[in-house]
């Protein structure tokens, strides 16, 4: 690692930032930088004790073109971990590895190992169906099925046979909607189409739908990028509440959002995991030059 990477212009760039970064501490930050812009080795400790998911040297190729380079990262229990980085940095691709959603993309190959509670999810014996029930996913654009609100929630439990009777299913739907904070808004219109709801409600419906199959990990791929600030605040509150029961991995382009909702933050760059650490430390005292450039508003 190269500690002598300080250049005059980084002082200027660091000085521009006012929101996330205390301008008075520029010199201390600069001393904290431990990696140069050319060095993609992960800075910070990507490992935690008794992780829920363990990723080791995960690389992803799209028809021979490498998109993710040897990422090792643990996902702890009951934590929200944010993944940030410029567009095309591989954070969404990496996220989609965690529940094997990349299987549906032709020409995509994943190497390395990812385990969920000690089970290798890329083992040939593993069936993706129960895996995806355990690792749920919420997408960038709300994508409710063109069915009723009730059927949107009941869809997962039905295909996995989670509810034995109609009353059990009713209870499960109500419970999921309550956990997603949507119950009071939709309890009288469960038979209305899910597409009728507002964007923010649709996204919470999609979260409720994911919760309904009782996952252990919830992956969120820019869940608020299509929502207005009020709906975003509501979803962020929900993420905070969900942390009690689930591990949440969230990809976001909003650094404020990452700072608000997450306990740990991982910064991706050009397919490499460049830095990972406590969210407070990443945003106040980044140790990698690229991380600092990114969070201070300059693309690295």
């Amino acid at each position, binding site marked *: 690692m190269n500690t002598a990477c300080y250049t005059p212009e980084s002082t200027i760039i660091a000085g521009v930032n006012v929101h996330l970064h205390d301008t008075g501490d520029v010199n201390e930050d600069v001393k904290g930088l431990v990696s140069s812009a050319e060095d993609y080795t992960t800075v910070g400790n990507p490992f935690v004790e008794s992780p829920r998911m363990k990723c080791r040297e995960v690389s992803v190729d799209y028809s021979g073109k490498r998109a993710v380079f040897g990422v090792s990262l643990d996902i702890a229990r009951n934590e929200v971990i944010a993944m940030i980085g410029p567009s095309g940095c591989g954070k969404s691709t990496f996220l989609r590895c965690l*529940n094997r*959603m990349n299987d*549906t993309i*032709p020409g995509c190959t994943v190497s390395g190992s990812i385990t969920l509670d000690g089970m290798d999810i890329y083992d040939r014996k593993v069936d*993706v*169906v*129960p*895996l*995806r*029930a355990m690792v*749920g*996913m919420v*997408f960038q*654009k709300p*994508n*409710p*099925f*063109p*069915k009723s609100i009730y059927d949107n929630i009941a*869809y*997962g439990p039905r*295909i*996995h046979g989670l509810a034995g009777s109609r009353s059990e299913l009713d209870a499960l739907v109500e419970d999921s909607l309550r956990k997603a904070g949507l119950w009071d808004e939709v309890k009288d219109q469960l038979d209305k189409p899910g*597409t009728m709801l507002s964007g923010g409600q649709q996204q919470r419906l*999609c979260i409720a*739908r*994911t919760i309904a*199959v009782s996952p252990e990990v919830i992956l969120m791929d820019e869940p608020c990028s299509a929502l207005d600030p009020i709906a975003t605040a509501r979803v962020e509150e929900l993420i905070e509440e969900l942390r009690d029961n689930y591990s949440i991995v969230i990809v976001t382009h909003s650094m404020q959002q990452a700072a608000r909702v997450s306990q740990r933050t991982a910064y991706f760059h050009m397919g490499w995991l460049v830095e990972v650490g406590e969210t407070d430390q990443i945003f106040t005292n980044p140790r990698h030059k690229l991380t600092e450039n990114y969070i201070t508003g300059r693309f690295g």
Partner: protein
Amino acid sequence: MTSTQLFITVALLACAGFFLGKKRAAIMRDSSGSHSSPGIRPHSTPVYYGFWVSLWAVIPALLVFVCEFVLKRFGHVPFSFRAGVAWEAVAVTSGIVCVIIAWLRLRPETRARNHIETGMNFLFMACATIAIFTTLGIVLSVIFESIRFFKVIPVQEFLFGLKWSPQVAIRPDQVGSTGAFGSVPVLAGTFLISFIAMAVAAPLGLMSAIYLSEYAGSRLRAWAKPCLEILAGIPTVVYGFFAALVVAPQVKAAGEILGLQVSSESALAAGLVMGIMIIPLVSSLSDDVISAVPQAMRDGSYALGATKAETIKNVVIPAALPGIVGGLLLAVSRAVGETMIVVMAAGLSANLTMNPLKAVTTVTVQIVTLLTGDQEFDSPKTLAAFALGLLLFILTLLMNIIALKIVRKYREQYE
């Protein structure tokens, strides 16, 4: 002066007007704002002034043509006016005069671009109107002829009569049947054959669409889809003799093995071949709506742990269903209107039967047989064709309206 010459003259006049107007406007633009002639800058670019002047060559000619047509067709005008030469001279002279006036009156303030846009507006409107009025004309002529038919044969007899035998004596002394014009057997035949065709086309077309859009690899899809669509390009006559010469004998032979009485021309043979013919219509329309279901919908389902089959069954097909139903209804309209296959393979005899092994006839086939050969135009036999045509038109129109409604509803779903 022939109409070709008139056309060329007007076109030349328009060209001349275009260049004259454009040149004048260009001069005005170049001289505007300079010290020698402090004129205003023209409102539009010179091209629009060119079009504006040439428009004045075309409009008088068109007006004169319309007047001539209307007066000659419907009006009573003095003989001297009817002579063709006078009209064409009027058209050309008025064109020349209008072009000169327009050219002289060309001012920088003339809002040429706005005038041209209005003119284009009228042009597009005229094109749309032609299509609408043609449809209207066809419908009206069918309706009027049908009214004449219904003066001879009561409507209720036509709609509810159970016997169709349109042979009538031409001369009073001729020995012949008196004719029976009950449309029920013909309609029943139409629906029977359409039903058989849809029973073949709906499952085959839908399943091939699901296979092509969801399961087939891109390379297979690239050649399989065009191959399937070639079926749509085969002329119906070819399907017709395929049905009559290949399928009908096979159906007959197969029926005999099972101990069934099959006539050599059967509804089954015609329906089967018609079904094959409609497959590409169903499959390509369904394929389009299935492909239009957003990938996000499938991802959402996969992310909940659904398999591909569950996703298709529970998410993709329900989302595409309105579009698929719309496509099926369009296919039914096509089946109801199909003629050639039925003429060749299902026969001409109007049996009122639901037995697909017997010969039946359809509305379209009856229209063809009623109107081919030497006919007396005011006999009920000939007029019956118009009544059948009207009936068919109303039926397919209703189906198309329903289909379009459903398709439109589907379109709104993902906005």
